[in-house]
């Protein structure tokens, strides 16, 4: 459905979505609903399924899906009021992705406008914190609230600025050297830390 090789897209589709099965399903009840009594799903059952399964079934007309809780009225009001304060990382790390995919199957014309609005208000915070060099509590607090897509954008900005600052100060970026301390040989004298770095004991 999406880019086959994208790891993040696959993870996004793991999100659980409530779906209503029009037809029953044999043998999968225990997998989808660990607490069920029989091993078959009856027709018309409402089960929480991962998004990839729900969309595949809906395309074939075998189920109908409803968006997860976070896109419903209650949360919309919360987000419209104060979008920056809501912790998306905990509730819906793939907020925008899942919203976009649900958009196809839903009769709700306001969903994508809602997504854009949310992004608009959170974006302002992203930019101001992302491109400043002052790290610390503020930034950590913001980072813990961002969904994963927003986090990618934020990190991009922060990395660029950090690199530029390090360059301006004349420092070199710390390379990821595998600092394996070599075993001490009693015979040779070590010639300081330079000699030890990166030497493999073969």
């Amino acid at each position, binding site marked *: *459905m999406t880019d086959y090789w*994208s790891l993040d*897209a696959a993870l996004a589709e793991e999100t659980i979505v409530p779906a209503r099965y029009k037809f029953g399903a044999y043998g999968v009840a225990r997998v989808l609903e660990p607490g069920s009594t029989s091993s078959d799903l009856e027709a018309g059952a409402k089960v929480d399924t991962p998004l990839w399964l729900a969309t595949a079934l809906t*395309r074939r007309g075998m189920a109908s899906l409803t968006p997860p809780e976070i896109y419903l009225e209650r949360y919309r009001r919360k987000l419209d009021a104060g979008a920056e304060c809501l912790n998306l990382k905990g509730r819906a790390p793939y907020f925008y*992705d899942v919203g976009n995919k649900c958009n196809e199957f839903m009769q709700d014309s306001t969903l994508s406008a809602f997504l854009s609005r949310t992004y608009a208000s959170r974006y302002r915070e992203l*930019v101001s914190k992302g491109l400043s060099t002052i790290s610390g509590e503020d930034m950590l607090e913001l980072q813990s609230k961002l969904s994963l897509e927003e986090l990618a*954008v934020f990190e*991009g900005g922060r990395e660029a600025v950090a690199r530029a600052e390090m*360059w301006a100060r004349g420092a070199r970026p710390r390379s990821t050297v595998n600092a394996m301390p070599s075993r001490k040989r009693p015979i040779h004298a070590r010639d300081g830390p330079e000699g030890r770095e990166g030497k493999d004991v073969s």
Partner: protein
Amino acid sequence: MPTASLFEYVAAKLEDPPLTPEELEFFAEHEKIEVIPNFTLNLPNGMLTCIEGTYGPFRPNIPIKVPLYLALSLYRRGKCRIQLPPWMAKEELRGTLEEERTHPQYFQPVPQYYVEISKLLFTEARAVFGSNSELCETQDLIEELKKVRNSKILDGLRKVSGPITVKLNHLSASESNKIRLLFESSLNMWHQLSKNDKEWQENQLAGNDTPATL
């Protein structure tokens, strides 16, 4: 129509950014700067032929324009005096700073690599500036300029609220590199979010609301 994942657009290439500040410094070293050599080059016409151009004639006490990398390596060997570029004179810098402060909507024209060139001159060619206090003053002025422009950039970015085009003219190379990843990714995200909206609306109008087969 299958929707793409946002990560395809927002995939922040953190491990290998498209341009590092070190690479920008390399590009900046191509800028021309005026130099007064104190030797004569023993080549026909005194000209030095490099791959990218010919420079010279290298005669003592005659100022010539050479690329910055050449100027710096001659300076290190004690073979020339570097002249301060005209835009780096204190009065010029003060004037530019004033202009920046009085016009918050747009940027002043500034040499494309002013950050890199000033850093190179401060670290490697301190004698270019008359005295230590002059050096510090110029350093302070450039820092001020950087800060004012930076805050203007942030203000402009904050106002972006959709997949629109933003006008940021006279942006220097290092400034545009800082905002490159963030700006590009967020514009991509805007674009994708609004594209989904349009697609859905078109689908509804066209009447093919029924789920297509996989």
